[in-house]
């Protein structure tokens, strides 16, 4: 035998070599652990949010009674001697803006969704959808500036009693901000209704309008409602538009022409001012943040529940 034949073939060498590599086995074991640690960061973030909010809110409630906070009708944290911490005016401010936003976003968003999904040609849809994406990508600070310097003056020309800071202008602009979300999610829900159902109705002599409103809309309802609930959640958590155009006067009434304050705008007011660390005002932003967090969490869970529970399967 020649010496060459005694040596194993290159392939066998490679196999042997790779078997001997202990490092490789170790890597195969370590990598999943590393990746799991990365994945746990997002869980840690949630715990971080919940614990910081609870921890600081508990500190706040050692200074302010919880019933005063939940049922108090006056929010006057800056009135030196007797500050009042009743959350209701802030919730009402948030509620007003959200309601106006939804009144704007739902009809226009749904109208756009029906048009894009049922009437528009493929080409029109492919041009308009990216434009809606652009609208969704505009930073909220830009919307806030737009509300303050453009929408408010126009509204003031129509409603003379409107103050510079009010609930209507930020409400409308928040509505424009969440509109693309409703339009695009509802459009997705309606587009996923199978063609055969549409054609069945058309074959029976229904017009396109009747197909859209009486066949497609009910079939896609769970997706549409989920999109609206998510839009409500976004509107509740919206910060910059209401800080710039909503004002900083918490009020317990249903007027929309006067200056208001939302939960988010209060947090901004405190953090842009100089309320020192450790003061009751400092802790109050966590209590307000926690309230806000609960509102949006409930909305998000509701949206998930609706889209899962009431989904029509075809």
């Amino acid at each position, binding site marked *: 035998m020649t010496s060459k034949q005694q040596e194993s073939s290159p392939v066998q060498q490679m196999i042997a070599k790779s078997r001997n590599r202990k490092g490789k086995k170790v890597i*195969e074991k370590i990598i999943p652990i590393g990746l799991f640690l990365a994945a746990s960061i997002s869980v840690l973030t949630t715990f*971080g949010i919940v614990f910081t909010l609870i921890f600081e809110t508990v500190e706040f409630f050692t200074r302010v009674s919880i019933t005063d906070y939940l049922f108090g009708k006056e929010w006057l944290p800056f009135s030196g001697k007797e500050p009042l911490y009743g959350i209701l005016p802030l919730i009402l401010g948030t509620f007003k803006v959200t309601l106006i936003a939804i009144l704007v976003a739902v009809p226009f968003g*749904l109208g756009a969704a029906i048009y894009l999904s049922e*009437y528009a040609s493929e080409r029109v849809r492919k041009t*308009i959808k990216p434009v809606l994406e652009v609208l969704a990508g505009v930073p909220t600070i830009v919307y806030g500036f737009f509300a303050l310097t453009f929408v408010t003056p126009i509204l003031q020309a129509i409603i003379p009693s409107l103050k510079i800071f009010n609930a209507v202008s930020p409400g409308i602009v928040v509505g424009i901000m969440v509109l693309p979300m409703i339009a695009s999610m509802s459009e997705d829900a309606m587009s996923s209704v199978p063609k055969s159902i549409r054609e069945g109705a058309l074959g029976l002599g229904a017009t396109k309008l009747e197909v859209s409103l009486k066949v497609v809309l009910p079939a896609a309802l769970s997706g549409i409602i989920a999109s609206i609930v998510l839009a409500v959640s976004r509107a509740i958590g919206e910060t910059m538009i209401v800080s710039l155009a909503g004002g900083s006067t918490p009020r317990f009434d249903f007027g929309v022409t006067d200056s208001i304050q939302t939960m988010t705008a209060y947090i901004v007011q405190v953090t*842009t001012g100089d309320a020192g660390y450790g003061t009751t005002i400092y802790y109050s932003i966590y209590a307000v943040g926690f309230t806000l967090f609960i509102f949006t969490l409930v909305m998000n869970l509701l949206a998930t529940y609706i889209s899962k529970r009431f989904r029509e399967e075809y």
Partner: protein
Amino acid sequence: MRYLQQEHVMKRMNKRLVWNRVWKGVFIAATSFALLALAILLYRILSQGMGYLNFDFLTNFASRIPENAGIKAALVGSLCLMAVVAPVSIILGVSTAIYLEEYAKKNKLNDFIRMNISNLAGVPSIVFGLLGLTIFVRMLGMGKSILAAGLTMSLLILPVIIVAAQEAIRAVPKDQREASYGMGATKWQTIIRVVIPAAIPGILTGSILALSRAIGETAPLVVIGIPVILQFLPTGMLDTFTALPMQIFDWAKRPQEEFQYVASAGIIVLMAVLIFMNSIAVFIRNKFQKRY
């Protein structure tokens, strides 16, 4: 016997067809409302801000006099912020996506992680600001620094990047993985040499879009307490800084009318950065994304 009255049917038919037309118009009007809003917004900002936008605006620091106000510190600050956010959020996001798509077995823990990510995406950005203020600024003593703000922003956009990366990884067909296994590759070799290269265009597109959201995000920076009028540039990760949206927020709040125009000019710079990033994302999507 007449079951159908021709006339009656025709009359109703016409009415139904007219309604169809009318409502089509209504739906088109609703769609145009959104497009119109965008057009007016862009027009307003361009017409107000263009006059103030010049080279000095880009190279001056902030000032109390509108004519001298510039955006240098904010622009540099935003770029420094991205230098933290981009690596942190992309590494964490892609690792999480690989774990969930390739390694995670179907059990309660992993279901919890998935549910947690989708809920995290719905938490308002201002709440992330409170998290950053408590954990990074105070507890870990980073102060109002680029690092503290960058880590906060990374956590904020993490869910978006995870979801985008998951979709990109899921789109890589199974036969490619199996071909790789068939050649004797290990799981990790398959992931790093086959799956990830094929998924990179999708991951990059999603990440850039998420980063552009982080650049325009204001609320967490406000809560952390980033200052606005800075006369110097940051020199390290633990230095304080200011960012584009913060600077715009400050100008927009000022009562003098001139500052409105300065704010518009600032918005043009911010939007230019966003459009630049988005075009890169679209370019990558169109150029490199393969359909299997």
